[in-house]
């Protein structure tokens, strides 16, 4: 303990303060649940950037990365052929590929790799590694592999020479280039030489940061890679980035308060951001980008397989109260399945509002009796917004006589539940993530039947017409024609009500003022591009 009156915080003090906070939160049980092993590693504070998040990753294998945290890790540790700029809306920038050419048929692409890129173990990045990365992604059929389903086949990607990659897609896929920032390039020889689990403790990338430590459910420590080919912003760089997993929301705000954390995630309660905004050394980023919240309804199970029941529920919800009182105005109600900020949004589709009479009419039309309907609503434990919406839904549905049970589950369990129809809950409150500037990014993973089994499609929606339209829109290059396809898709889906289209939320993050270069472009992973940040004090 420091007795000399220094005003910096020693590790001991942090420990005690955090412990006291936790004890205050509810006695012994809290200490058990929240504080076990939560002591952050105290490093040279000036050079270490701490990102505090309440969510933990289920894997750090880059080809299995699918959710927010996993993609933050992947984009910072792995390079891809192309990159995204931090503008909003984001644009493509060179990555491992210095330059690229698109053939006249919109199906052949040529990428010219830079010759100064090396993996963290010193191996040069070659065209063969790129070929291998695509193969591994498609072989594992996990993570974001849905992006390239039916577009990239086994022979699509070839190495013309050491530094030239040729890709011939199996069909025209309009947003193809925009998906490439999500194809991490891995070191073939390193992965071949090790077993499956190796990637959970090590990285095989060439990105701006390398993994030095991974303690499950606790933290990931990344170190700046001196040999990275890219440009760093200025001299005051963060040599170390710590992704600290802090399950307690109160602890996150406490860490922001005593500056042992620099950036929060977007999953805290609205009240916590208000508290952070009141701190002198913290600003809250509140960019409205793309963070749409859906309550997916299991369309393959009784009674939600009946469109009338789904419509009745859609008309029972008090959307106004969600926007005004739960989110305190930091959101817009959705109109149909696509956020209205995205191009191609159909302004004519039905926007549900609370209308209990109409809800009752639909319920009367259905084959089910409201008294017999019992549903389960599953949300991510700790995501207070979705929990509160669940409480409101419970009250709203009760007016129709429908029983709703709430169930909180950790994110890792939810990603597990949605892999099969039997274990998927009746209703899942889930935010879709934004990965490329194209309506496809929200529509395909959630509503195409090929995407079933991922956390983005817990509605198990089956509609051949929608499948066809989504496929057509992918293979069409003409933007007007694509817009038409997407408008039709939105109309069918909005009408079918396979989900409650709740709100598009402003994404809130607390950021310490000392962090310079912070821009939220809304992209999953890329909105936390740590290599753009520097110390600004």
């Amino acid at each position: 303990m420091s007795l000399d009156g220094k005003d910096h915080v020693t590790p001991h003090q942090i420990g005690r303060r955090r412990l006291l906070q936790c004890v205050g939160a509810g006695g012994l049980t809290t200490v058990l649940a929240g504080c076990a092993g939560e002591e952050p590693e105290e490093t040279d504070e000036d050079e270490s950037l701490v990102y505090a998040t309440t969510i933990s990753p289920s894997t750090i294998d880059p080809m299995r990365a699918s959710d927010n945290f996993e993609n933050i890790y992947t984009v910072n540790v792995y390079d891809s052929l192309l990159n995204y700029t931090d503008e909003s809306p984001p644009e493509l920038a060179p990555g491992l590929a210095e330059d690229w050419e698109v053939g006249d048929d919109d199906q052949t692409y040529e990428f010219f790799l830079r010759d100064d890129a090396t993996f963290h173990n010193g191996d040069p990045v070659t065209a063969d590694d790129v070929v291998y990365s695509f193969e591994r992604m498609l072989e594992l059929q996990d993570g974001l592999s849905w992006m390239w389903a039916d577009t990239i086949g086994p022979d699509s990607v070839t190495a013309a020479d050491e530094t030239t990659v040729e890709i011939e897609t199996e069909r025209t896929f309009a947003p193809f280039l925009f998906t490439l920032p999500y194809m991490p390039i891995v070191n073939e020889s390193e992965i071949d030489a090790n077993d499956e689990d190796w990637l959970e403790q090590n990285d095989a990338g060439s990105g701006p940061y390398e993994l030095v430590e991974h303690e499950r459910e606790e933290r990931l420590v990344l170190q700046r890679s001196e040999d990275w080919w890219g440009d760093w912003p200025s001299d005051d760089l963060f040599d170390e980035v710590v992704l600290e997993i802090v399950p307690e929301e109160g602890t996150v705000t406490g860490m922001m308060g005593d500056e042992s954390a620099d950036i929060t995630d977007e999953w805290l309660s609205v009240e916590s951001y208000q508290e952070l905004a009141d701190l002198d050394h913290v600003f809250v980023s509140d960019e409205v980008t793309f963070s749409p919240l859906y309550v997916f309804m299991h369309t393959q199970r009784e009674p939600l397989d009946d469109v009338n029941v789904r419509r009745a529920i859609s008309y029972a919800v008090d959307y106004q109260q969600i926007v005004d009182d739960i989110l305190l105005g930091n959101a817009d109600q959705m109109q149909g399945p696509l956020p209205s900020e995205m191009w191609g949004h159909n302004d004519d589709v039905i926007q549900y509002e609370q209308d209990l009479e109409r809800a009752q009419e639909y319920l009367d039309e259905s084959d089910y009796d409201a008294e017999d309907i019992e549903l389960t609503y599953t949300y991510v434990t700790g995501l207070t917004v979705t929990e509160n919406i669940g409480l409101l839904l419970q009250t709203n549905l009760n007016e129709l006589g429908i029983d709703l049970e709430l169930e909180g589950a950790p994110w890792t369990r939810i990603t597990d539940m949605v892999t099969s129809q039997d274990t998927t809950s009746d209703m899942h409150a889930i935010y879709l993530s934004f990965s490329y500037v194209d309506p496809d990014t929200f529509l395909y993973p959630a509503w195409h039947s090929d995407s079933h089994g991922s956390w983005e499609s817990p509605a198990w929606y089956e509609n051949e017409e929608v499948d066809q339209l989504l496929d057509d829109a992918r293979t069409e290059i003409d933007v007007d024609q694509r817009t038409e396809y997407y408008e039709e898709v939105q109309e069918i889906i909005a009408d079918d009500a396979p989900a409650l289209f709740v709100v598009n939320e402003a994404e809130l993050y607390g950021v310490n003022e000392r962090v310079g270069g912070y821009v939220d472009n809304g992209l999953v992973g890329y909105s936390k591009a740590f290599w753009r940040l520097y110390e600004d004090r």
Partner: protein
Amino acid sequence: MSAIENWYHSESMENRKESARRIAYRFRQNPLSLVGLGIIVGLVFIAIFAPYIARHPQDAGYMGEPAVDFANRFAEPSLAHPFGTDQAGRDILSRVIFGTRYSLALGLFVLTFAIGIGVPVGLVAGYVGGFTGQVLMRITDIFLSVPPLVLALAVAVPLQPSLRNAMIAIAVVWWPWYARLVYGEVISVREEQFVEASRGIGASRIRIMFREILPNVLAPITVKFSLDMGYAILIGASLGFLGLGAQPPTPEWGTMIAEGRAYLPAQWWYSTFPGVAIFIAVLGFNLLGDGLRDVLDVEVD
């Protein structure tokens, strides 16, 4: 012989009354146990009359009519809402009052189950002995070797999280303590003369176990029961806190603390008052249990 055994074995009505009076007198001599008794009587009263005491019973989901009012969220403690309101604008005092029901029900269920299983197991193991006794007690030992909360967690995780399953998980953890306690007592009395005597006149094993031996074990069971009520409530709240017990919006104390901790420290009242309720309940049962232990003069650990 302890007081309660005296009372049970007393032949005449007069003697029984006399012993009961002595127990009551010694109990009164200890003011702390009276406080404990007062707390528990109060809790039981609150649990039974919750719908009449609570000002906003619908906020606790009474009669299956949940009510939320997000416009009135996080009102500070005031006359209208002495414990404040939570994130859904519900009156925390009303919810804490209804929480009494869940906690007492949980404690009662767990201990009824634990006694129902543990006592016969202990009796049989102690009286019959031999191979059967060894097997029963070794199984008991296996359960006892894992800390109760950890074992309850292990049982609760594979089940769907709900209040009922939390009760089952805790009950599964609890019975071995009673088996162990009863076993020890049985061993110490099974060679006594009155047992020998009833064996001599041809009493059945069942009769000997339940009529002759069991009354000697009643005192420690009673004491352990009242002490354990507190612990069972605490473990039930812990499971609720960890998300493995009652689910929101059930106004179970542990669940409420867990919900409120996202809003600490600014909305301190959300987690604090359910925590105080747990504290009072556990304290009440502990004081009563301690008092009973002194009066009945038994050792339960």
